């Protein structure tokens, strides 16, 4: 800014047009989209947990996890539909199958996942067609990890600097967070005694999530600022981390207490939501400040220019 900053038609600055963002702010709604991400993650992880429990011969846990998967998937779908500008056109999601569109891929995961997990629960509840029910559960388990992680690609596959640049780590954050929240859901709905494996799941998930988050903060440089510098995103992310840690500690400590397990489980679910919301907000912040768009691109051009000695990679700030 000019030292003699005066209030006027701002003198042209070279960083952006009147300080306006270059990118559009994502229009996704809060809480719809973070909620969808959380629920989808929890659903996906739950389906895997259910399959694990099935295999490990823990029918109670399996049933609870299946139910959680179905409920979370349906609720998540609800959140997703609610986020649409034209909810009645939800089915248009299945018009095409586009590998280039994470949301298209995701829809094609979510739809069968929801159907399969619902079928599994229906079979459970009615006691009918148990084999098919189990098969459905297995199918959901296969789709579950995809459901939990595709959303990371959903974010990353945008021009939003803080999301796109974090594409290597985001899936791991989402996977970890999904595991913790899926486990958390199980902890809420299952007897404490049944929950041994999910406690471990929670701990592992938390570890993956925290490790990946740390890497994002360190690796990203300028674009990582919204994740690490004071602001709404960082507050949410820190709260998420605290709750994750707290939730894991609680479920590990409260191993025998149904109440503590449930509290810990809920804490993990909340943590997962805060983490997604934090990442969402970090992205929004990075889209709204043109610096995050321009500076890395400029740096890239400079680098390219230095490397190739071509005019296409003009050095910073000179006319070409």
């Amino acid at each position, binding site marked *: 800014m000019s030292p003699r900053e*005066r*209030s*006027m*038609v701002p*003198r042209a600055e070279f960083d952006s047009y009147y300080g306006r963002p270059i990118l559009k702010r994502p229009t996704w709604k809060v809480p719809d989209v973070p909620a969808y991400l959380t629920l989808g993650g929890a659903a996906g992880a739950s389906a895997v947990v259910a399959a694990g429990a099935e295999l490990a011969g823990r029918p109670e846990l399996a049933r609870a996890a299946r139910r959680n998967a179905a409920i979370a998937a349906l609720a998540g779908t609800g959140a997703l539909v609610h986020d649409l500008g034209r909810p009645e056109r939800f089915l248009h999601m299945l018009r095409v199958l586009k590998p280039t569109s994470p949301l298209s891929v995701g829809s094609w995961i979510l739809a069968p996942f929801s159907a399969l997990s619902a079928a599994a629960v229906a079979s459970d509840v009615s006691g009918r067609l148990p084999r098919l029910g189990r098969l459905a559960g297995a199918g959901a388990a296969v789709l579950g990890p995809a459901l939990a992680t595709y959303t990371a690609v959903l974010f990353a596959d945008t021009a939003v600097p803080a999301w796109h640049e974090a594409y290597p780590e985001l899936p791991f954050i989402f996977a970890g967070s999904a595991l913790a929240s899926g486990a958390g859901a199980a902890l809420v709905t299952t007897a404490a005694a049944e929950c041994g494996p999910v406690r471990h799941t929670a701990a592992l998930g938390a570890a993956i999530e925290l490790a990946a988050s740390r890497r994002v903060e360190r690796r990203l440089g300028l674009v990582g600022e919204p994740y690490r510098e004071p602001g709404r995103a960082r507050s949410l992310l820190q709260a998420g981390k605290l709750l994750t840690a707290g939730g894991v500690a609680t479920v590990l400590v409260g191993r025998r207490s149904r109440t503590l397990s449930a509290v810990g489980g809920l804490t993990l679910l909340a943590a997962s939501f805060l983490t997604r919301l934090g990442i969402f907000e970090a992205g929004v912040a990075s889209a709204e400040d043109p610096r995050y768009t321009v500076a890395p691109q400029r740096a890239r051009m400079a680098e390219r220019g230095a490397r190739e000695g071509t005019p296409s990679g003009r050095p910073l700030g000179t006319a070409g």
Partner: protein
Amino acid sequence: MAEAHPVGFQWVMEAKKRGATVIHVDPRFTRTSALADVYVSLRAGSDIAFLGGLVNYVLENELDFREYVVAYTNAAAILREDYQGPDDLDGLFSGYDPDGRHYDSTTWQYEGADTPSPGSGEMTETEPAQGAGGDPSASRVGGAAGRAASYGDTHGSGGAAITGKPRRDETLQHPRCVYQVIKRHFARYTPEVVSQVCGVPEDQFLRVAREMTENSGRERTTALCYAVGWTHHSVGAQYIRTAAILQALLGNIGRPGGGILALRGHASIQGSTDIPTLFNLLPGYIPMPHANAHPDLESLVGDEEKQAGFWGNMRSYVVSLLKSWYGDAATADNDFCYGWLPRLTGNHGTYQTVADMADGKVKGYFLVGENPAVGSANAKMQRRGLASLDWLVVRDLVMIESATFWREAPEIETGEMRTEDIATEVFVLPAAAHTEKDGTFTNTQRLLQWHHKAVEPPDDARSDLWFYFHLGRRIREKLAGSTDERDAPLLNLTWDYPTDGPTADPSADAVLREINGTGPDGSALSAYTELKADGSTRSGCWIYCGVYADEANQAARRKPGQEQTWVAPEWGWAWPANRRMLYNRAAADRDGNPWSERKRYVWWDAKAGKWTGEDVPDFIPDRDPHYVPPESATGPDAIAGDDPFVMQTDGKAWLFAPQGVADGPLPTHYEPPESPVANPLYRQQQNPAREVYPRRDNLLHPSGAQPGSEVFPYVFTTYRVTEHHTAGGMSRTLPYLSELQPELFVEISPALADERKLQHLGWATVVTARTAIEARVLVTDRMRPLTVDGRTVHQVGIPWHWGPGGLSRGDAANDLVAVALDPNVHIQDKVGSCDIRPGRRPRGPALLEYVEEYRRRAGITELTGTEGVTP
């Protein structure tokens, strides 16, 4: 031009692409400046000094196109001995009458010319002088309007006719020849003085001078484009005169790429002056008869007939007009019903009328596509006028402020008016839009273009043609059988147009055909040269004769431009005679050869014995370039082979104007009626012949050195933005235009913002003695303070489109503007002095007190700023 004539500006860009240098002179850096090669910021209201500087540069350095100047201008004419100019008289010209505040032009005449003007004194009652109407361009229509100005009543009809040709010294050495006189006159406009008056750095001025002169002459031409930045001044006509002198000296008139191009305003503003609804004119720039000077037809046209040029045939134009109006009732025996024409007794211009209206003298008023409550100077006075009527008819597309004043005028809020006190009966009649009626517009290049009706107008909406036809029909019905002599013109009026369609819309085609005129056999005429003075021809507007040639609507011609020459003569129809460039005889030299190959346009084909070229020659088709008329010849017969300016009585371009201009034969710089700057040139501060209205509702500021002028320390000027149209009826009501410029704003420089603590996007109050308005502030480097006469002058830019109605709203800039007019054309000044303060203006009665306080501080009375000679 990019702002107000964007599509026209494509041709400037086209020229630029081909290497033209584009120079923009404007107080503000505008969208035009952005595309110009050279931008000159000057003080609003100082252009005569700038242009005068250019004239001086040309004369001082003998850069004039000498052959052209000697042959085609009046440079060689010798003036009387007793002419004196501003140098001799401290800012006045000889002949000034301080009591009547007008000039007697006797001393401005050519030596030996016949009876000079009787002066205007005896002609006028209310106001000293008046002339032709014309928006930006009285002189745009060249001789016609310039000539008409002389008919106004400054000189009376033909009173100042110059008969016989002046004595000439073609060496231009005679000390009293026009060339030497103007050389002396403009000598004072040195680059230093230009800089001092205009605030333009000398080197910048010299750059313009060089560019212009280097690009003029035999091989090259330079064009000047102007609009109301030049005309809306109390010396507006003189601005154009200065430009005309410059262009005539450089040989830039009548030649391709040259000219002084008026960028006129509305779709048919040119048409509105050609077929005028102007008090002082009849169609075709024929003067309205004056009670004093024109008791009969002979007095109107007699003297004209003795003159050279096409005005010599004026009798046939007037008789044909009377025939087309009064038909068979008009006969040679009854002077073709000349006696039925109403007479003028002075200035009946719109500002005079509004003043009379405010004083209760006018009872009924028609506003037909006009929004004076926003668009006219001193809009407050306009609204007072409207509120003092018995009845008002508004015809418009939308509910404009001039129709809703009785409930929405700012004066209601201040308590100056109360709705229930306003006795005006208001009729609002919806008008049909251009797509809902047939008709012609005449654009800025005098081109008539027909627009076809596409759909029926909605509901009660009707064309103005419909309204006036049926109103006339009804009035005639009401008066039917009347034997009152005063009703005779109405009852004998030719008023039988065929009607058509569900609403009985009269045929515009039939009206156009009447305008064109018919011959003895009733068939359409094809040229005004066919008009007769014996009553055997009819024509509603002689200059439009030919638009219906061959019984075809020539204005509706739409041969694609791509399929024609660059002159595109088969698109629409231009008056006169479908001529696209006036005075184009000047494109050839004295012998009739093109001045240069590059600038070929119209030339003499000696073999064929006729003029030919790209355009319809503006000359007698077979007149040899070396023809010398006999002494006794009059009218067109008196035009010599080297007299290209065929509407001038001497056939020459007037560097010095011995007649026709009310405020001096030469332009000289005066300060605007209100200015914080004392005229750096001489004691005379303002145009001594400007028209003022000393009234409570039109108070003026002290100016220059007068005490109190410091209370209004800034110069303001008003202007347009591309996104809006004039008073807003056609733009502030439309969402797509309103969103582009949603609010009134004022533009100021960062330095002024500092000085007055104004915040970007904050509110400001702008104050004059009339009232105060508020606007959002745009602080921008595009506005710069100027150094004028050693001191800093700040300018405030105010776009004037806004008013209280519509989607995009704001105060009206014209509430600030005073009525102080150019004496030739009675047009307002868009420039004035003001104060500007941060914050919103007071509301309600507090506003009145606020403005009153300013008046007190400046010591303003009704007489302030109205003096003729500066004391």
